[in-house]
């Protein structure tokens, strides 16, 4: 059997099916999905005339890492350490927990210029610092909520409210699946727990359920119910599937594209049972690769394994990988309310080497051009202290970076004020980040729409502009 002709995309999208129209199964399924998605307006996607990224790896730092401790040096803040915030920077900072004016707090780490580009990265990230020339650092991000969950929803789905499709769902909806036997949108959570926003961060909401992010776990059954139950041998299951197929073919009708899609979905499920455990099995990677990702060090081994897994997934055609650093107990999040040094030191210790390893590995395998890596969080942190040595949430100015996927490497975009509180140059709203990500994937954020309850919904809601200087 020619596997290629018989392949079924895990995530159907209309565009995907349009592209497949006329060839075997896709042609059949086309009419059915056209009928079933009659509410969805044609997305009128025009192919972009340039090479576009094929996959995204979103390295999500749960809880809000500090900009002034990582990628946004603030010498003036060091100078003003311990003093109240000067009036020139605005009124007293009010955030989720801060009310009274607390003193300014200088960075817990020193900065240095790195690589040829001279991008400044703090000593918190000695390994990522070696990849500075691959980064496009955006120092002027801002968002709308200073509360974790709404800010997380905004980062992941474009709104502070729940109920809208996540970015990964939009991307698989727009591009379809390139993997024949893995979910197109995979989520790799922190083993200790999920981010505060929970499943709406990878939900498909009103997009078809196939575009929902699938959580992958370590172990022999990485996908929920992937493994046949104990007592069901492979031979026994194969026979059962053959019977199901034979029976279903008996009742197939000439217009039965919905019916044949279901028949094919069983074959795909069967294939996935083999391919998913193989995809997540990092044991056969070389010792050198494992070391590159920090698997030889207890503190970075877990996150490193997931970074390595992310590379294996994009290699196998997965479109969108969400990789979370942080989740569950407060002590395993970047939410440093009490002590910057302790918290960020610990979290960076888990992630610095693996992230650098991922960038280097993607690059040497020629995958970085087609893979957009994003580092960021729901917001940044305040220049004033909380509880003495910590910082509260700051949505008014924070840093994210991108690498690969056609983004302009070795650049710094935008700026915050001298204490890192507010954006003062080239403001970048989350919607602009989204527009830019979609653009790098060859999708126009204004055209990637879905008609729901009478409105052409899109990831960028009603605004959003591609950051032209970065693409």
């Amino acid at each position, binding site marked *: 059997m020619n596997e290629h002709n018989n392949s079924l995309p895990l995530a159907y999208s209309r565009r995907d099916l349009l592209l497949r129209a006329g060839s075997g199964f896709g042609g059949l399924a086309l009419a059915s999905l056209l009928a079933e998605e009659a509410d969805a307006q044609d997305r009128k996607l025009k192919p972009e005339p340039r090479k576009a990224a094929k996959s995204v790896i979103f390295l999500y730092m749960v809880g809000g890492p500090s900009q002034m401790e990582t990628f946004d040096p603030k010498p003036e803040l060091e100078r003003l350490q311990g003093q109240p915030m000067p009036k020139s920077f605005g009124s007293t900072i009010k955030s989720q927990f801060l009310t009274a004016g607390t003193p300014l707090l200088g960075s817990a780490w020193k900065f240095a210029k790195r690589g040829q580009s001279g991008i400044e990265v703090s000593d918190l990230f000695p390994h990522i610092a070696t990849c500075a020339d691959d980064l496009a650092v955006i120092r002027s991000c801002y968002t709308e909520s200073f509360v974790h969950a709404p800010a997380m929803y905004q980062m992941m789905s474009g709104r502070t409210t729940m109920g809208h499709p996540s970015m990964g769902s939009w991307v698989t909806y727009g591009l379809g699946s390139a993997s024949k036997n893995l979910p197109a949108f995979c989520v790799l959570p922190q083993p200790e727990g999920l981010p505060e926003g929970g499943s709406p961060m990878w939900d498909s909401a009103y997009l078809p359920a196939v575009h929902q992010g699938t959580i992958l776990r370590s172990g022999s059954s990485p996908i929920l119910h992937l493994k046949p139950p104990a007592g069901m041998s492979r031979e026994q299951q194969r026979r059962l599937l053959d019977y199901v197929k034979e029976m279903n073919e*008996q009742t197939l009708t000439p217009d039965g594209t919905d019916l044949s899609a279901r028949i094919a979905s069983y074959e795909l*499920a069967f294939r996935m049972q083999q391919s998913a455990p193989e995809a997540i099995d990092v044991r056969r990677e070389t010792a050198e690769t494992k070391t590159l990702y920090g698997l030889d060090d207890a503190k970075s081994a877990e996150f490193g394994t997931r970074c390595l897994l992310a590379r294996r997934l994009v290699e196998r055609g997965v479109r969108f990988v969400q990789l979370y650093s942080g989740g569950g107990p407060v002590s395993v999040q970047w939410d440093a309310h009490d002590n910057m040094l302790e918290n960020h030191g610990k979290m960076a210790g888990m992630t610095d080497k693996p992230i650098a390893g991922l960038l280097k590995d993607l690059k040497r395998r020629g995958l970085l051009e087609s893979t957009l890596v994003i580092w960021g969080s729901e917001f940044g942190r305040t220049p004033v202290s909380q509880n003495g040595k910590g910082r509260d949430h700051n949505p008014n100015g924070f840093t994210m970076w991108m690498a690969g996927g056609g983004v302009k490497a070795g650049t710094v975009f935008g700026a915050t004020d001298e204490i890192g509180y507010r954006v003062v140059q080239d403001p970048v709203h989350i919607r602009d980040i989204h527009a830019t990500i979609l653009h790098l994937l060859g999708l126009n954020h204004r055209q990637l729409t879905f008609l729901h309850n009478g409105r052409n919904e899109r990831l960028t809601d009603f605004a959003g502009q591609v950051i032209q200087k970065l693409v």
Partner: protein
Amino acid sequence: MRILLSLFLLFAVSFSGQAQTRHWAFQKPVRPAVPKVKRATWVRNPIDAFVLKGLEKRALSPSPSADKITLLRRVTFDLTGLPPTPQEIASFLADHSPNAYATRVSQLLNSPKYGERWAQHWLDVVRFAETNGYELDAERPQAWRYRDYVVRAFNEDKPYNRFLLEQIAGDELAEKSFETRVATGFLRAGARHVVSGNQDEAVNRQEWLTEAVNGIGNAVLGLTVGCARCHDHKYDPISQKDYYALQAFFSATDDYEYKRHSDEELQKYEAQIKAHGASLKPLEAQVGAIEKPYYERLRAEKVSRLEPLYKQALLTPEKMRTPEQRVLAEHAGTFTNISWDEMLAALTPSDKERRANLRKQLHKQEQEAPKPIPAALGVSEVHQPIPVTHILVRGEPHVFGATVNLDFPTILKPARLPHTGGSHAVTPEYLATLQLRDLAQAATGRRLALAQWLGQADHPLTARVMMNRLWQTYFGKGLVRTPNDFGLNGERPTHPELLDWLATEFVRQGWSLKQMHKLIVMSNSYQQTSASDAQRNRIDPENRSLWRQNRRRIDAEGLRDSILSAAGTLNLEMGGESIRVPLEPEIVDTIFTESEPDNLWSVDPDPKQHTRRSLYLVRKRNVRLPLLAVFDMPDRMLSCAARGQSVSALQSLILLNSPFMQEQSRKLAQSLLQSQSQEEPRMRTLFLRTLSRPPTNHEKQATTRFLRDQKRILTRRGEPEAEIAVWADLCLAMFNLNDFIMIR
């Protein structure tokens, strides 16, 4: 350039203004004459005349009626959400009277399962759930009473306008009751962001109001009024002023909990609570005793690691601390907190196990807390004096524009108001007329006025929108294929006259939904076969003219309920508190908490409750049962007017491999083996229980071959209970067939 553009836009808008006001959905429905058709013999009721007229216009002919058994499965599922039982099939097939089908339809409409089925559709539309959503996703105890209210309302065939009246203004009615106050749960069905820390009350209040107005816009009006919160509507003639005038009906309204108890009951309850609290104490003390030495050690370590400044502040007695030291001591307190994960990491394995066991007992004991005093989670006119409503510039809660009075959207204004027959402004005088007739104490009459306006016979949208929802459920697609958008950007009806006839007939029948259900399922249009036909398919591939029925996939809840029904395990108990069924540990893990995650999902201790209908499973916004989620159960964040119909490998995996499927297949196999000793009748029963039909000859052969092969595989492996295992495999296979999951 920009000026030119705005001039152009201005022109375009005023030009399209006329089209906007003339839009079909904003005109009151006028009862059309039933059309004359050529093939009059096909017409069983007026619905068929409208459908046939459309077919004849396109030179199409309708399809013949589906066979009796297909029809029974279809109508039983559509009216009750369950497949027919083998007994029901046998008695229906044995009834050769011409009224057999009509009799069955009446029986189904009178079955309490009808209310359960249709409640589910309504709860989708109002995005009902039992938790707040957002990160904490806190529970709303007793929210289930609203679900039961909806079931009862459908079963009693409460007139639809009365149903709306109770949901929007149940607390303002003169004849208000606990029940009508429960009904107002409709207004607080949506998600709500509740979080600690600094709050912006104005933002929170706007979110409440937005949920309330959008809820009515989506569910009742079928309009995207929410678009006008930030700007005049782009497509529909709804201005921002209209939006806030609508919001003003709710300006005094907020959540309110109505308790129902006597003093005696309250005393009894408080005593129970106290006793229950005391019963937890010994266990809590035991946990505390295990933790104490660890806690002291860990804290001492943390204190010793403090910088001298903090340490000194902390060690200084509270009264003697300087102001600076007070701040430092407070910070030091945070630095020296011992979190549960630090505690867990410090415990020895044996202490950890002892503690875990104690906490397990504790959680079990907690489940036995006394049942709360009945409360209606409703609304009331809480904000007095009634706050003034402002237009909010760009929808921003702090940027006030002009003030607005409450009013109905201009485009939908009736010729006259209920009761007065007079001018159509919602004035204080008008509200006073309500006061005389219906108004209860402490009410403002605002929502009552809104509800009465919505329930007027000639309202342009109310009846049409609801009839379209009915139609969509029976044919897979509505007459308007954008069921929550009847505005200019929505689709035009495929059969405008039929929709208006249905809407006016609905009102003529006293807003009786059961009458309308009956009319639709009795029509020949509904009873057509779904089989395709190449020639007609070429002319109308989307089947917009309804030359046949549409094949549909069973929805998520229907699928789970059908499995339980076929397995003979379905518990048909109605109503009451929602049930937590066993949930995959991987999904329990997805429940967010920063506390110790050892009690996130307390499964109902009675296993009989685990096989209740899906309607009664707890509706938690952030957690859906994977079996249901993967088959497109909505997340209940926003109104869901039509379920998705996706196909994916994850569906196949769950239907093949999940413990639930294994268990139900085995139960079904056991029951088959007990009731039939011969293979052939056993197979026949299995087919009837799952597919509602006997097997064809070819299917019999294929099934026999499968049984033989599976038996060989299992016997060779030395399976001790090969017979039941083989049949369990067959049952599992049946649940995976297209004919099980599809309604033809």
